[in-house]
């Protein structure tokens, strides 16, 4: 971040306006407004069923919204398939359950999309893949299959796989929730490193230490709505709403 420039002065990377979505009678998202600036790091938290996963999955249209608008890097998400594929190739996503492709090696997992979506030659794709595998500190596993790696290693591969597309935005959907405690740190360290390099990040997580360390803003959701958003220091020290206080006392209380 440049000191002279405020985040809000930059062009927004993601603009979400009056977003609404329901599964049948159940309203998952109502009237959600959120703008993410270039280079900004947002942590989204909230109790389960609060709609935070649906929100982040709407950003690359793994979920379709029913009302409102989402504009990502200047392109609005509509039913136009070409637009969706373009946005998906600019937006990397990391899932709770890694979702690596078990029939491909680690290297092949990383080169697949650059070769088939970006149409890069294999050698160039492999060079990029090895660069990012070194970055997440597992280049020596390149020829193994996902099933031979630990959960933490698999999640780091998933991060490298997303980075190989050179995305402008990274979405993390509870990236450490399925990990054994001793593996959480290695994944968080990778994410912090990424944040420090200026990547635009939206991260659904309950890792409040991570939020305090890297987030520019923390967004608290409940019942499909954004209840409160603030800078991390203020968010944790003086939450405004009762629901936020209750949530924070529950997850920080032990």
């Amino acid at each position, binding site marked *: 971040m440049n000191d002279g420039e405020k985040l809000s002065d930059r062009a927004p990377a993601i603009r979400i306006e009056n977003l609404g979505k329901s599964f049948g009678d159940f309203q998952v998202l109502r009237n959600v407004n959120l703008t993410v600036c270039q280079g900004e790091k947002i942590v989204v938290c909230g109790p389960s069923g609060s709609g935070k996963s649906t929100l982040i999955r709407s950003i*690359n249209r*793994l979920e379709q919204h029913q009302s409102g608008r989402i504009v990502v890097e200047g392109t609005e998400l509509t039913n136009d*398939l070409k637009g969706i*594929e*373009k946005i*998906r*190739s600019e*937006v*990397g*996503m990391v*899932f709770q*359950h890694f*979702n*690596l*492709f*078990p*029939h491909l090696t680690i290297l092949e997992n990383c080169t*697949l*999309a650059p070769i*088939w*979506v970006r149409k890069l030659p294999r050698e160039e794709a492999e060079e990029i893949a090895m660069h990012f595998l070194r970055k997440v500190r597992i280049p020596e596993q390149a020829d193994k*299959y996902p*099933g*031979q790696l630990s959960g933490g290693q698999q999640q780091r591969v998933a991060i490298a*796989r*997303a980075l190989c*597309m050179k995305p402008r935005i990274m979405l993390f959907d509870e990236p450490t929730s399925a990990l054994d405690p001793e593996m959480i740190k290695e994944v968080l360290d990778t994410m912090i490193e990424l944040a420090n390099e200026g990547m635009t990040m939206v991260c659904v997580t309950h890792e409040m230490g991570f939020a305090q360390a890297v987030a520019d803003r923390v967004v608290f959701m409940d019942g499909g709505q954004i209840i409160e958003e603030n800078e991390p220091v203020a968010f944790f020290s003086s939450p405004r709403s009762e629901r936020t206080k209750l949530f924070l006392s529950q997850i920080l209380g032990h």
Partner: protein
Amino acid sequence: MADTASNTIARAAAPDARSLLRRLAPFFGTPLNAALTLILLWLMVRLGSLLVDWAILNAALFPAEPETCAAATGACWSFVIAKSGQILFGIYPPAERWRAGLVCILIIITLVASARPSAWRPGLAAIWVGMMAIVLWLMGGGFGLVSVPTSSWGGLPVTLILTVFAIGLGFPAAILLALGRRSSLPVVRTLSVLFIETIRGLPLLSLLFVASILLPLFLPESLLPDKFVRALLALTIFAAAYLAEVLRGGLQAIPGGQSEAAEALGLNYWSTQRLIILPQAIRIVIPALTNTIIVMIKNTSLVLVVGLFDLISSGKAALSDPAWPAPSTETFLFIGLIYFALAFSFARFADFLERSGAEKRG
């Protein structure tokens, strides 16, 4: 020196004797077991010696003439030897049989060459299309070869062509049907379900009858495909419907996160299916696919009811020669052996595929 050597042998022999006893225990452990073992041994020896007498010791071989068989009390292999050309190639013109033989060799070589996973490149599909074209040219003639109408095709090449074409064309169709059945587009889904359920609900025999007898009633002569092509079409759609359901089982077993991850990387629907979903789904259903394909190999023999000469009908035609004593057991043993070789080698191949995949992924 000699002493230590014999000691070593004695020490080595003692555990051997013990382990031999241990192995024999289940067979002779109790008086009942011992009695059963002896009775079964006696039966095996009796039946085995009868079989050896019939198939080898008393069998007629050379010269491959009817008189050789008349003089022998055992199997009449002379007939199979003398008639092998007719059994293998049916009513295909004898002077052109080399072409039919070449077709069989060509198909088998292509099958074996495509067996290794390392051979599975985009070029392989082109090789198969080329092979199929050459096969049709060799069998049918034209372009310098004497023309042979499909009504004169027969025997092993017919069985191989029907099998390879029905599965080769049915498998891609099955993939589309299986994907169609899971499509989010209502029209595509309904059509796929309708097709699969209709074809699965009909016996193959009735499909073959429709193709060979009913179709000519509806279609004008000029639009009517050849009878061989019609039978092949019936076999193909039958294979497609069954293979589609097998594949669907595999598709359902792939977690939704796989296509989400692929789509999140920007892959479109077809790339996602081709690169991520199908390779995993097909691997899961290898045992069921093997089963369906082996059934399809043997189903091709049903074309005899619509007047095509596959291996079995060629065998039956050969048996009708009045100069010979019509040794049907020997003939059908010979044909059975060919079917067994086809089905068994395919089953071994599928087994190899399954194991090679399992080892890699630990």
